[in-house]
């Protein structure tokens, strides 16, 4: 089991996630079948945990996988710059997130501003995922650079 990310890596990741990247969450069932869904938002909590909002109904199988294995991989790409990070973790649990509506809206509006800048009509941004969402929380243990280029795939240390 990985001990988790360094404080510097956690800070980096936290700052990155509040820039409203486009998020895709990968999970896997016990038989090794992969699953993927767009996530609505992700944040690093003060305790250093990673919280992700999984939309429903399209994320139902992802949540089932999380309950079965606890393992996730989240890729996050800033639309305007293509900077991309992938974070992986384990021990994921379904949790309540009292502020999730605010976080979801903040994240969606941030992404919407970027998508508007690249020419996508605003009306489409609000159809990328469902309004109903379930929060999960996990310990982030691995962080990788995924921006296209020579550094893609390298671990981010901090």
């Amino acid at each position, binding site marked *: 089991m990985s001990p988790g990310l360094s404080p510097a890596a956690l800070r980096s990741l936290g700052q990155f996630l509040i820039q409203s990247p486009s998020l*895709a969450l990968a*999970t896997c069932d016990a038989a090794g079948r992969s699953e993927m869904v767009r996530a609505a938002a992700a944040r690093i909590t003060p305790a250093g945990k990673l919280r992700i909002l999984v939309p429903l109904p399209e994320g139902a199988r992802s949540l089932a996988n999380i309950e079965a294995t606890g393992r996730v*991989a989240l*890729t996050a790409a800033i639309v305007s710059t293509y900077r991309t990070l992938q974070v992986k973790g384990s021990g994921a649990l379904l949790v309540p997130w009292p502020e999730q509506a605010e976080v979801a809206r903040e994240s969606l509006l941030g992404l919407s501003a970027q998508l508007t800048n690249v020419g996508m009509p605003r009306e489409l*941004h609000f*159809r990328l995922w469902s*309004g109903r969402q379930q929060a999960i929380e996990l310990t982030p243990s691995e962080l990788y650079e995924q921006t296209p280029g020579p550094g893609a795939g390298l671990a981010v240390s901090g």
Partner: protein
Amino acid sequence: MTAPLFSDLPAELFEGVLPAALASAAADQAPNATWLSQVWRVDSGHVALSCQFFRKTRSNLGQNPVALLLLTHPRTVEQWRLLVRYSRSETTGTLFDTMARRIATVSAAENESVFALRSADIFEVLEVEKLVIEPDLSEPGVADRGAVMARKPAGISALLRLSESIAASKQLSGLLESGLSVLGSHFGYDSVSLYLLERSEGILYALASRGFPQSGVGARIPLGVGIIGSCAQHRLPIRIADLARERRYDRAVVEQAARAKGGEREIALPALEQAASALAVPLVLRGSLFGVLAAESREILAFDEQDEQLLATAGQLLAQGVALHEEDDSEPEAPPLPVSLPTTRGVLRLRYYEADDSVFVDDEYLIKGIPGRILWLIVSLRETEHRSTFQNRELRLHPLLKLPTFKDNLEARLLMLQRRLEEKSIGLRLRREDRGRLHVECNLQISIEVTPAG
């Protein structure tokens, strides 16, 4: 509910406008997620992914070949999941070449080796699922408008109108003017440009354009350079659905943008500022490359597969029309007009550089290459032989021009030169009232200088 068939999925899913995402898993069920620049539909049961940067994904597929693709429709943001099984990697062949060309054209950056296609990874599609998404549309200004990016219809009637306009044109200039106009009015292609290949130079020249801030007539772009040059070199259409997205990687777009600005000895290409979509189709006549017809738009996803076919067909009609005008060699005999005397006291200073056949007017770049050589010849003949009328036939045969004996595109070159002179308004004009003849008009005294090569 019946599961959708892979073969029924919309073509736009494979345009690469909204990145796809791939989930894979290792043997120990550790998941991995990555965004993909583009997914190719190979046939009714397979997709191909470009293996450019996949490290962990490749490792996972070696352990567990079943992965999941998430595709998003760029016009509606409807989403589909494709359960896929890794089948094989191809490093040669038609598919690999097609993908490699696409990446060479619209990808790469500082270090090409990093971005070069290593293989085309083929996956069998096992299952297709359309996601049920229940969006919250309570945000102000977000009404339920369905597919908000609707396509415009165009088709046979537009092609018929183009064909009629070409048939009715008696002169090459009229053919180009009406032809490009119909592309705007009946096809919805408001910004179009037509390039002709100058085989002896390996260069494409902008012959005509419509709907750009600058006409760019006479602008040059080498084969293999930029979107236009790559389209010509590979004789394949190039369609870029979202230039803004691809610009991050995009050598071709960067090159094209640089060319659009022009330079000391280059005319700026016809180009839209903030273009979002581009489409270029090769024009081939009698098995040989003839030129390129290109369209740009400020909208993302402005061009789809139908546009590609439509523009290619329209381009062939235009190319055949241009070629017909070249072949019509009827040149009426008429007495040459004498050189008119200067009516003003000004002097037009022309400098000709033998090295690249460039012509400068009062130290300002005018044109180069074969059009530059033609201009130099007729101005020199005007000064030495004191006549202002020239027959196409004599130009074709003149040793200084070194035109090919077959398919010299002289008409097109003269038209390009005529338009360039009109745009520059330097007091020197070409008038072409009869087929096969041109008149040089200049009310200034002409001073000519030559800078020898070397």
